[in-house]
């Protein structure tokens, strides 16, 4: 279903939805853009590049209490009762949830993740002005993609949005709003979409990357490529598809919190053994997980091209550049045996 809706009506729609849903939307907090629960429609940003933290934080939170234990009794954490609605998600972030589903919703479903997914409606906002660091088009997606969304909004300018539903939930939300989309609206939308797609200059060829990675595992290239990296966790934490976590007991609660394979002690075991102590190994790991292992296990690359890693790296490591520079053929002799 497609409808043309005026911005004023969208604001009213939001105000209505607030009665039944916890609304989470992008807000500006001291020059940083965060998705946060809002109480007033005025708080929402109607146009913004992308949020600092990806939308995964609402499904796999930076810190989450799994259960409480006290004198032998275990009490699972309260699962959110009220429905949530995330407003203004970018298509790349929406797509990242489909990738995370492959990890958390396979045969063993993670109940915490599952409940949140079930309980949350996603209303996306098309990117009309992709950034220089964006490369979503390299992954069968695009700035106006509906994948993973219940509803997609596209700003047509002049206070008018074109809304498209992509699920029964989305259709229900859209029913009765605005008016029929006329030919002019459709054309305008197509124009905006094409312009946005053309603006994306950064490109990665994932299939070529996969081949290079497989042949280049022992390539001495990695020794040099990793030197700039400082082993912090920014790229891992801000990546919409990274999902590693650690567990700890704090004050009679079992908590789950973000962890990253870049940290020096990520693979440290109780025995003291740490197979990925060397920076080179930890640096490589990310590329291989995203572009080789995940593809081989789940038939899809673990990246949505949002560009957060490029924008936020403290030493400006360009992830696509690293892969670009990886030589196409192995330069070391084949391993013996």
């Amino acid at each position, binding site marked *: 279903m497609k409808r043309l809706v005026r911005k004023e009506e969208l604001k009213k729609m939001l105000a209505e939805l607030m009665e039944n849903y916890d609304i989470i939307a992008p807000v500006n907090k001291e020059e940083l853009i965060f998705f946060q629960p809002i109480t007033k429609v005025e708080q929402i940003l109607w146009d913004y590049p992308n949020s600092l933290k990806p939308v995964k934080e609402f499904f796999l939170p930076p810190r989450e209490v799994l259960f409480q234990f006290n004198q032998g009794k275990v009490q699972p954490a309260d699962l959110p009762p009220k429905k949530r609605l995330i407003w203004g998600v970018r298509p790349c972030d929406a797509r990242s949830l489909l990738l995370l589903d492959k990890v958390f919703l396979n045969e063993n479903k993670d109940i915490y993740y599952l409940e949140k997914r079930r309980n949350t409606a996603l209303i996306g906002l098309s990117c009309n002005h992709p950034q220089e660091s964006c490369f979503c088009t390299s992954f069968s997606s695009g700035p106006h993609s509906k994948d993973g969304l219940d509803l997609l909004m596209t700003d047509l300018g002049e206070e008018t949005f074109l809304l498209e539903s992509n699920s029964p939930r989305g259709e229900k939300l859209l029913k009765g709003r605005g008016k029929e989309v006329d030919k002019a609206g459709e054309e305008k939308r197509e124009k905006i979409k094409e312009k946005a797609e053309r603006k994306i200059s950064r490109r990665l060829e994932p299939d070529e990357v996969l081949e290079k990675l497989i042949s280049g595992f022992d390539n001495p290239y990695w020794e040099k490529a990793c030197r700039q990296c400082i082993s912090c966790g920014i790229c891992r934490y801000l990546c919409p598809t990274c999902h590693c976590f650690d567990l700890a007991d704090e*004050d009679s609660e079992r908590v789950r*919190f973000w962890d990253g394979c870049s940290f020096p002690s990520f693979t440290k075991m109780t025995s003291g053994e740490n197979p990925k102590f060397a920076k080179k190994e930890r640096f490589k790991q990310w590329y291989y997980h995203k572009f080789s292992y995940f593809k081989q296990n789940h038939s899809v690359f673990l990246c949505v091209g949002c560009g957060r890693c490029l924008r936020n790296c403290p030493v400006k490591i360009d992830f696509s550049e690293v892969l670009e520079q990886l030589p196409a053929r192995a330069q070391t002799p084949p391993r013996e045996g």
Partner: protein
Amino acid sequence: MKDSPSVEDRDLEPKSSEGKAKIAAFLCKWCSYAGADLAGGSRRKYPANVRIIRTPCSARINPLFVWKCLEEGLDGVLVSGCHPGECHYTEGNYHTRRTFAVFRKLLEYIGIESERFHMSWVSAAEGDKWAEVVKEVVKTVESAGPNKYFSKSEEAHG
């Protein structure tokens, strides 16, 4: 997401906590601990709010111990050692003095009430002084109210 008071909403106004203040005291074993022992032996009366932890020297006291006490919800911390020049290990308490001169500035800057951290020199012969120090410290800590800064129930992040 859990309902929890945000930082803006929490009530941080001081309230009196007469008689209920919980204070940890780190005492060096050669002087202050012996001084406290003497106070007990001489039947000096002083408030019972103080829990004593004995260390070989006041220099063993890592500022992190003080911080952890406050983080775990104790209302006040006292660090006590030998008078300068009388340290059993010659110079330990000089290091303690410098360390805590800096650390207390950090505590204050972070917003921990200055009434919560105290330091004293109490020698093995100063049982009377020990009793007086504890009385003053307890009174001062109580005037800052209970330490509510670190709530037991954690808010979920975000």
